[in-house]
């Protein structure tokens, strides 16, 4: 080997290393330049607004007061917004309702999506077309989906028509005017729109399960259910967690479809947390109070998420 290390070769290697070092440095500078715009946007939308929100939440400021937000300290009220919030029944019931919608919709979407995904695991005639059609609901603009379901659930609309046909009776439920059925209706709309997302993600996961293991288990005489429980489900664990996490996060924000269908009504029967904040923002215009609500939610969510992440990391190490 040493006989090959002629002086010319050594100097070539040196030159190459030097070039590498120079371009390494250039790379770092280019990397910083490339990430700069995104960093600026994140700062612009995260740090400054958060401080502003904190400041306003300690005051009674409203855009109708005629003074700029920076002068809000003239309306300082300390932690009154936060203590008010603790006693605000409408806020807590909106939070409870949001949780209820989540507890019904996310599991329903998961089970329906998983069931459909299992049916789509192997090839059959028409699979590709059916697959594309299945994905349509989640691509429909949510506000438009809200309007679709608003029409469907009219008392003279197709839902009652189908129910009449099935039961043989004349069904004329005023779905959206009754507190209970209105909540059911908005849940159905959410399940209709987001089951395809579960289906899509879970199917991608199912297809990714190594086929040879499943085949080996089949040869060993394992039943379908045994194969599914002992091989497929454990391999799908991460994917299931991702799919559920996405839906839990998105479902918590629920607004568009629901607001168009019911406006949060009748009364406050379908008022979720986003609808509640929206109404206080637009109708009551007490922005100091809104800022306090929003901050409480942001902090609570951050704590929940960091807990979830640390638990997941603990699970990985165990």
């Amino acid at each position, binding site marked *: 080997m040493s006989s090959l290390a002629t002086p010319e070769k050594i100097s070539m290697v040196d030159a190459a290393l030097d070039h590498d070092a120079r*371009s390494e440095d*250039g*790379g*770092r500078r280019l990397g*910083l*330049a*490339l*990430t700069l*715009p*995104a*960093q600026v*946007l*994140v700062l*612009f*939308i995260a740090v*400054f607004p958060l401080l502003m*929100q904190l400041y306003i939440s300690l005051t009674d400021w409203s855009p109708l007061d005629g003074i700029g*937000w920076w002068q809000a300290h003239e309306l300082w009220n300390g932690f009154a917004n936060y203590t008010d919030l603790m006693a605000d029944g409408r806020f807590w019931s909106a939070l409870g309702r949001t949780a209820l919608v989540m507890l019904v919709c996310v599991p329903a979407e998961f089970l329906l999506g998983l069931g459909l995904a299992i*049916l789509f695991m*192997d090839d*059959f005639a028409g699979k590709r077309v059916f*697959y594309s*059609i*299945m*994905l*349509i609901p989640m691509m*429909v*603009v*949510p*506000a*438009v*989906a809200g*309007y*679709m379901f608003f*029409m*469907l659930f009219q008392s*003279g609309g*197709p839902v009652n028509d189908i129910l009449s046909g099935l039961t043989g009776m004349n069904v004329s439920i005023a779905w959206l005017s009754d507190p209970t059925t209105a909540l059911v209706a908005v849940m159905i709309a959410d399940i209709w729109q987001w089951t*395809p997302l579960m289906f899509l*993600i879970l199917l*991608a*996961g199912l*297809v990714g399960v190594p086929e040879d293991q499943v085949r080996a288990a089949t040869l060993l005489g394992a039943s379908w259910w045994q194969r599914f429980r002992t091989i497929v489900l454990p391999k799908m664990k991460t*994917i299931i967690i*991702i*799919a559920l996490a*996405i839906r839990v*996060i998105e479902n918590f924000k629920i*607004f*568009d479809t629901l607001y*168009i269908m019911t406006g949060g009504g009748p009364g406050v029967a379908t008022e979720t947390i986003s609808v509640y*904040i*929206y109404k206080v*923002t*637009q109708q009551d215009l007490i*922005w100091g109070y809104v800022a306090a609500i*929003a901050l409480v*939610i*942001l902090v609570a*969510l951050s704590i929940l998420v960091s807990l979830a992440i640390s638990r997941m990391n603990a699970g990985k190490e165990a």
Partner: protein
Amino acid sequence: MNRSLPFEIFRYSVITLALAITLIPTLWMASMAFKPIAEWSAAGADLTWWPKNPTLDNFRFIFGTSTSDLIVALDRTAGKPILSSLLSAVFGTLIAMGCGTAAAYGLSRFGSGQNLPLALIQLRLFPPMAVMIPVMIMWAFLGMVDSWWGLALIYGIVTLPFAFWLMKTFFDDMPREIEDAALVEGCSRGRVFLKITLPMMRPALASSALFVFILNWSDYLIALLLTTREWVTIPVYMASLSSSMTGQLYGAKAALGLIAAVPPVIMGIAIQRHLVRGLTFGALKQ
């Protein structure tokens, strides 16, 4: 799996049912859009699944051509809201894709901006409603309320996490040999990115951009808060197509809804190969 005949019958019946449930709401709206006023104004009394006398009156109506049946006058037509939706979604996509692609490359190749992945996921985590007060104040201060460019900027920020994560996984997947070869040839890193990497990434860029566009086009809440009159987007305008005077203009709303719903559905089906990657922030690839 199982290949027996009873299983196939079971499979096709379940799928048929699922397809029916999937399609009925959309088809109902489509049918509504082509019904003449006599058929939709009596929506409570007389339900027909298909328009008996199909007409384009609803479309003519929202674009301001007067129709004989509808005496109601619109104070403005659907043209400007459609333009507003288009401009804000397109430029929002450009902002998100521009900043997202650059940052994703910076992180994927040079390890810059290690904080971005988590910061951007967090951005996505919070309900928009919980951060809108400062945004509304800032946008008012910058004179961007009720403008398509104001909407475009916030859309760009809101969808930046998707653009960044999608492009990051595409860059991570791309073999580096070609880039390395160009570097050895003496190309600067900036030139390699612009002249070699980006052109190679064209399909990935196109699918990511469509994905981001669908998200921007789908917004309702932000436009509801940040536009008031001049630049309202389609969904906000749609809600205004009902008043105490006229009641719900079912047919007109359905026509507009159909216009809003068709582009994202077509785009979504076109990029369905990448949907999983986009929706799971690149955690899962198909």
